């Protein structure tokens, strides 16, 4: 039977993927000889895609100018979730991710990303790095080489053991089961944890991140500064579904 000869492009499975839809992502893919990839493609059931995700070791996530850190982390989680499902190594599949940010991205973005992956600051050994478009391409190549890889189980353990996450889990537990008298102290603990970087609270909220985090900040302020009333408790219960974390 005649068989079609696979082209060299099909035979070679790229290890570097560039996630993004714009012309910047496409041209970067050309320069780095990587495969451009769209997040929408993740839902497609295709053996070729399984092969692609199974062999992926480096992912460059191109972030738009209006994208916040929690949104970037959501994209990162989306990719990881898909890799976990399709890779042979499941959630032990190790990848390194580099966020490609616009030139004027504030430093808060970096702290947001670091917190989203369970760290205080970006640590290149933990599988994540950031590169701004204003920086040189040589630096990007260097970062590609120097950034270590991490897997989902490590990421989840790190996230779970963050003092911020622990304080929020304690608060959720108290809001769900009481007593009323303990809510104030649990809220105080959360308030203290997030005092220095309150914007990071967005990472722990479901989308819309900013709006939900604002509601929680207001609630926490009321619980810390004023008296915790049954109404405030009820309000807290209503707000619980907006948090990503669940009761242990």
């Amino acid at each position, binding site marked *: *039977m005649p068989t079609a000869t696979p082209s060299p492009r099909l035979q070679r499975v790229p290890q570097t993927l560039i996630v993004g839809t714009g012309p910047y992502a496409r041209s970067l893919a050309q320069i780095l000889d990587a495969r451009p990839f769209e997040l929408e493609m993740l839902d497609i059931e295709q053996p070729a895609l399984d092969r692609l995700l199974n062999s992926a070791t480096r992912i460059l996530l191109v972030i738009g100018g209006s994208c916040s850190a929690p949104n970037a982390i959501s994209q990162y989680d989306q990719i990881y979730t898909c890799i976990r499902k399709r890779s042979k190594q499941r959630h032990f599949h190790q990848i390194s991710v580099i966020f490609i940010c616009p030139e004027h991205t504030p430093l808060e973005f970096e702290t947001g990303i670091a917190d989203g992956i369970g760290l205080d600051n970006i640590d290149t050994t933990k599988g994540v790095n950031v590169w701004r478009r204003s920086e040189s391409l040589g630096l990007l190549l260097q970062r590609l080489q120097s950034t270590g890889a991490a897997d989902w189980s490590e990421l989840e353990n790190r996230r779970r053991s963050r003092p911020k996450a622990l304080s929020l889990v304690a608060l959720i537990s108290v809001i769900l089961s009481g007593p009323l008298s303990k809510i104030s102290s649990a809220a105080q603990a959360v308030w203290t944890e997030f005092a220095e970087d309150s914007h990071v609270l967005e990472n722990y909220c479901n989308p819309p991140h900013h709006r939900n985090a604002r509601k929680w900040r207001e609630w926490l302020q009321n619980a810390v500064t004023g008296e915790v009333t049954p109404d405030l408790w009820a309000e807290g219960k209503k707000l619980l579904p907006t948090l990503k974390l669940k009761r242990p």
Partner: protein
Amino acid sequence: MRQIRLLIVDDEDEPRNLVRKIYEEVLSDFGLGVPAITTMGNAKAAKAHALQFLDDPDEPYDIASLDLNLGDVEVTGLDILEALKLSQAAWTAVLLTGFEMDLEKAAKTFVEPKKLTQLLRSFRSEAQEKFWPMRVLVIGKPHHSLPHNEQARLLRTHIEQVAEFYRNLESQRYMFKRLEVPRKRKVKHKSKYGKRKTALADTIQPRAVYQIRCGCGDMVELDEESWPGLKTMHELFKMGRNAVITAEQAMQIEPYKPRNNKLKPTKAIVKPREAAKDYFIGEHPGWDSYDGATRLQLIEEAISPWIDAYCELRKYQDTGSGLNKAQQAKLDQMLTHPLSQVAEDWYDNTKELTGTSGSLAEITIGRAAQELVNPVRQRPQEAREDVWLAQRKSRLCAALRDKNILSFADYIEENVSGTDRNWTHSPPKGIDWST
């Protein structure tokens, strides 16, 4: 006796050495021999070691003893447990929780017994989620503030439990069991309100199911009817070490049945329509006496006037360009031709080769035409016993691999061997099949 392979993962040196020493003593006392022990102190290295089995499968560990807390925020004993399951690198696992198990002492010193029991229960359920539930044991590690003798005494009691647990489970590691389960059929009946209902009821004739576990993987259940060759293999395994089964015996145990195409995921064989053969016999009365080359030439002559047009129309249809009414009518007319199946195969085989020119003889023709050229003749049943015996093994292994039951397929390939008319099953030392 095969030497037990044991993996101990603990980040602290002193407890690790104590655990190692007690394992050596207890396993020897239980008559399980002196184990070959691998110890690891680094959590990440242990995880990587477990995952290595995915790419490079080695002989799995018989017991993996893991500390829950490995002094690393990112990797716990539960993660290693999960990695061991993923790579099928351990038969049984033991998780040491790091809590005192002696409840009386716990009540006096460390934790409230009620809270301790709750904690252990939660660890147990987590461990059972991460590993095969029946093959994981959660035990307490004596608290480091206890006197050394007391620690050793408590640990020895727990490790004796582990040895007992392992000994009981060992017989299930290689299992090839035949079970008879009731066959269900749909029965219609009327409810008390007079409504017609359908329910499942057992039938008199049960169906046979084989439970198979080979090594550290999951247990699978395979139906006797859908898995030809399994019954013969089971009988061979049942006969014991180095038993031989002949082709005649195999035919008695499991008479030959035609290939069940349901098992094969590949495209079903397209049989030439009788119409095609009738067409040629009608056109050329001496068809049966012609040789292959003549037949091929006649097929080519018969379809060449319209094959190009057929391929073109099918191409439009496939590429989504669509057909207009006249084209559709023409294609429908061609499909009623007795040789349409031959033409369809021709199109299938050549659509990849755009721009290819040549006669049918130069490029492989389809199955339908091939069968017309060289008809397959059924051989008499008596002469094929030995052939079927060999086929039975290869077909069974292929079907097992198809269903991702790799370990059992590999085992059969390696350990069931023989000549044309005889099979022998010779398992390695230390592997006893409970059939």
